[in-house]
């Protein structure tokens, strides 16, 4: 007599199990499925959504199939209870069905974030055919929002977009598919989706779903943005469906506990699929579920088999987005990365090695070798022999070195190379092909690189790309070990290619490390914020600790605090606030600096936000004594008090400091204004110094008194204070736009020439442009960093993450 097998859930794992059970024979099978249909290939819902396939194409076991095989189908019926003592299950009709063996294959439930409004009509998950049909029902031109930039969310977004729907993806994390992809691949994926017209918002937190007449109308984000939509799809994760098993008293953790034989804590109950937890692992991809189905069938047949989890690889089923990810990127000892980027083809590959073995691989753009790498990971192959060439894949024979010219070769013909003279790549290549065989000749023919010279490196690379071996470029100093490009090249390419994020720089310019190093990151961060003040988001993690903590680190790890004293002028109230802060925070040293202000040295990192808050109440702001930015404007007493004073030097100094503070610059910038040529403010050895005379203001630039002693060179002489301000601002902006990171103005001027600087700042049109660009940047960056960090959230970052000494004391 055949025994009775009851299966709860008719999804992919159950379908596969039934195939094995039917082939074996000996069972009468009853199959309950809450979905009102048989088994289909759930992973192919995305091609159905995008219109590449129909539902009929993806059905694997329909009602007819099951009926012919003698399986009793209870479709559209949910099992509501299991009585393990009586060995029965009860469906919605309330009549118990007896079993000899029971298999739970209930899959998972999509997780719905309990945002206000999540129960409105038009808020759906992406799990089954019903969800897919809701999305397919949207008309062309309607709007959808997808919460979640993982595999499912992006397939939903791309599928709806293919049907003419206006789609926005809202993702909490900093980059897409963060579980499978690293940032670089996430960047490329996002770039591809955005270029198709899908809107992608990363690092965005949803706050509330706005409804109208019981239907979804919009999604409101934490920052207040409202995204109107006709349908909202939540694809933020899944939870094993365990309610039934839990109610039946089976051992349940995050999933239903099973042993290697797929048997639950009850020997007559098995479980397979996404509802199980095996050895602490949950499952979300189909390959291991098929192995589970096979093992469960063997167990039912009374044979010995054991399930072992194996590495699975992920591919996104969106046409044109070629990505592949396999193996493990989580933390571990002794790991090494091999990174390959080909910006011209939009290719990125990264391999993670542990000892002699490959343990992870991420690829974007060219995934042809994916399965080969996956094989190496699964088999644990010793790759030490092929380590050097591993990343080039199985077909690789002999050395084809990385091409440092790729970034330049990839530029379109109309990309601007020389900003000063408006020369684009096409004109330069044409000149080279027309016979200009070296830098001098290209300069003469096109004017490129004949002004400020920062594009010289690029022109040389164009010569090299165009002429090949015939051209021998003079060796230039690259930024650091992460790239072959010089600072000047990087700056020019950021402008020419409109690179607006660090990810874009690393990928498009072929960085050889995943995310730079302590040398290039601060430089790239500065270039991006200087060139794209609106588009780029400053990255504190790419700044030296002083600029991240807004204080100077001392050799014992404490910090110094220097409030601004505009033009060196203070008041009794400010001094009192400083004195009080010194008392309250036990400041060991209070010193007058060489920059006409007061330094409080030896403050504990944890105390900084509270101390700033106290100083802030007295009107004191950060003096940026730690910044590559405006430091001080020293002044002398000027006309107000001095018998020799010719102009209001103190007043002008204060005005300049108020206009310029908070601006980031390639290196620190110090200024001074002296009231007469006696020069008590030492203006002649500052980055910019003004010496007042009877007839006006003599402005000089490029002075220094640090490691080099330099006297300023005359920039211009003007008659009014307003003109003086204009010229100062224009000069600072010219320096901000062109200098190499960590070049003080005198070093930069030595490279581009004082004549060029004078010409630029002297040209009224260019001066106006520079001033406007500076003011735009200030509208974003002129904020007191101290005041911004006294709020609870920000302030906590200054303290320890956890204090376990307290716990120990208990």
């Amino acid at each position: 007599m055949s025994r009775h097998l009851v299966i709860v859930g008719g999804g992919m794992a159950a379908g596969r199990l039934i195939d094995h059970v039917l082939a074996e024979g000996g069972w009468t099978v009853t199959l309950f499925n809450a979905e009102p249909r048989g088994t289909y290939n759930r992973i192919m819902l995305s091609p159905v959504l995008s219109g590449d396939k129909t539902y009929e194409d993806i059905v694997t076991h329909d009602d007819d199939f099951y009926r012919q095989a003698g399986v009793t189908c209870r479709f559209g019926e949910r099992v509501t209870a299991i009585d393990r003592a009586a060995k029965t299950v009860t469906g919605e009709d309330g009549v118990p069905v007896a079993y000899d063996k029971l298999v739970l294959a209930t899959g998972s439930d999509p997780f719905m974030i309990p945002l206000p409004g999540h129960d409105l009509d038009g808020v759906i998950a992406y799990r089954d055919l019903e969800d897919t049909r809701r999305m397919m029902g949207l008309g062309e031109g309607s709007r959808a929002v997808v919460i979640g930039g993982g595999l499912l969310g992006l397939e939903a977004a791309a599928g709806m977009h293919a049907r003419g729907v206006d789609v926005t993806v809202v993702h909490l994390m900093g980059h897409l598919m963060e579980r499978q992809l690293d940032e670089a691949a996430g960047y490329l994926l996002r770039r591809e989706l955005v270029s198709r017209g899908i809107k992608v918002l990363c690092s965005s937190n949803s706050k509330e779903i706005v409804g109208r007449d019981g239907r979804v109308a919009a999604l409101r984000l934490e920052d207040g943005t409202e995204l109107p939509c006709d349908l909202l799809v939540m694809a933020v994760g899944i939870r094993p469906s365990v309610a039934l098993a839990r109610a039946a008293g089976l051992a349940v953790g995050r999933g239903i506990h099973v042993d290697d034989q797929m048997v639950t804590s009850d020997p007559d109950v098995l479980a397979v699929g996404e509802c199980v937890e095996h050895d602490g692992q949950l499952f979300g991809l189909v390959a291991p579920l098929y192995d589970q189905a096979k093992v469960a069938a063997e167990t039912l047949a009374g044979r010995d088999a054991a399930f072992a989890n194996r590495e699975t690889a992920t591919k996104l089923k969106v046409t044109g987005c070629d990505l592949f990810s396999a193996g493990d990127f989580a933390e571990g000892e002794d790991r090494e990365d091999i990174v390959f980027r080909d910006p011209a083809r939009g290719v990125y590959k990264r391999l993670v090695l542990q000892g002699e073995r490959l343990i992870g691989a991420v690829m974007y753009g060219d995934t042809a070798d994916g399965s080969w790498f996956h094989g190496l990971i699964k088999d644990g192959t010793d790759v030490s022999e092929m380590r050097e060439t591993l990343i080039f894949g199985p077909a690789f024979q002999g050395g084809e070195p990385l091409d440092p010219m790729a970034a330049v070769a990839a530029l379109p013909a109309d990309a601007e190379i020389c900003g000063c003279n408006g020369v684009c790549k096409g004109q330069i290549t044409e000149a080279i092909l027309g016979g200009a065989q070296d830098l001098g000749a290209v300069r003469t023919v096109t004017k490129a690189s004949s002004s400020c010279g920062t594009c010289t490196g690029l022109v040389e690379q164009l010569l090299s790309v165009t002429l090949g071996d015939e051209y021998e470029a003079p060796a230039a100093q690259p930024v650091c070990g992460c790239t072959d490009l010089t600072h000047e090249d990087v700056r020019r390419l950021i402008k020419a290619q409109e690179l607006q994020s660090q990810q874009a720089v690393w990928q498009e310019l072929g960085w050889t490390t995943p995310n730079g190093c302590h040398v290039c990151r601060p430089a790239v961060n500065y270039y991006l914020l200087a060139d794209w003040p609106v588009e780029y988001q400053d990255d504190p993690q790419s700044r030296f600790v002083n600029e991240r903590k807004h204080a100077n680190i001392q050799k014992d790890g404490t910090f110094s605090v220097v409030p601004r004293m505009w033009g060196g002028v203070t008041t009794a109230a400010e001094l009192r606030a400083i004195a009080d802060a010194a008392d309250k925070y036990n400041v060991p040293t209070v010193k007058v600096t060489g920059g006409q202000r007061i330094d409080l040295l030896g403050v504990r990192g944890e105390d900084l936000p509270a101390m700033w808050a106290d100083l802030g109440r007295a009107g004191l702001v950060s003096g940026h004594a730690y910044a590559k930015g405006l430091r001080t404007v020293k002044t002398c007493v000027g006309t107000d008090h001095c018998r020799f004073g010719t102009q209001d030097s103190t007043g002008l100094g204060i005005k300049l400091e108020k206009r310029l503070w908070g601006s980031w610059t390639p290196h620190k910038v110090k200024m001074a204004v002296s009231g007469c040529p006696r020069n008590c403010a030492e203006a002649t050895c500052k980055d910019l110094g003004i010496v007042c005379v009877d007839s006006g203001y003599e402005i000089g630039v490029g002075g220094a008194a640090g490691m080099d002693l330099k006297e300023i060179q005359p920039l211009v002489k003007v008659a009014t204070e307003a003109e003086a301000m204009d010229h100062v601002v224009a000069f600072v902006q010219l320096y901000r736009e062109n200098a190499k990171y960590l070049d003080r103005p005198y070093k930069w001027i030595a490279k581009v020439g004082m004549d060029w600087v004078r010409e630029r700042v002297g040209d009224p049109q260019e001066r106006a442009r520079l001033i406007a660009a500076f003011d735009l940047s200030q509208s974003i960056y002129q904020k007191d960093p101290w005041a911004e960090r006294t709020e609870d959230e920000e302030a906590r970052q200054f303290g320890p993450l956890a204090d376990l000494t307290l716990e120990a004391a208990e």
Partner: protein
Amino acid sequence: MTWTDIGHIDEIPLRGARKVKTIGGCVAVFRTAEAEVFATGGSCPHKGGPLADGIVHDRKVTCPLHNWVIDLTSGAVLGADDGQVPTYPVRVEEDGRLLIDLGELRLRRSA
């Protein structure tokens, strides 16, 4: 192993670090990727620089005082310099909580 909860991964900025005070000294916890963290002793083997204040890149940190570069996976100083910081197992739970195993550092308290 004794796992101690020290906070949530979102309390450490991406490519940033925070310190954890223990009875046996400071420990630095680094977040190198969206869901990847490492923990090492808090002081640089050169002159005791606070490693949690350094720039985090790849799986390395650069000390803020004199730019020694330390491999977070092994605690070894890289490049021409020589030295070693202790490392501690730390893991990220599904819900983002961070658990650390301080091993001997905890034992020191009973010693």
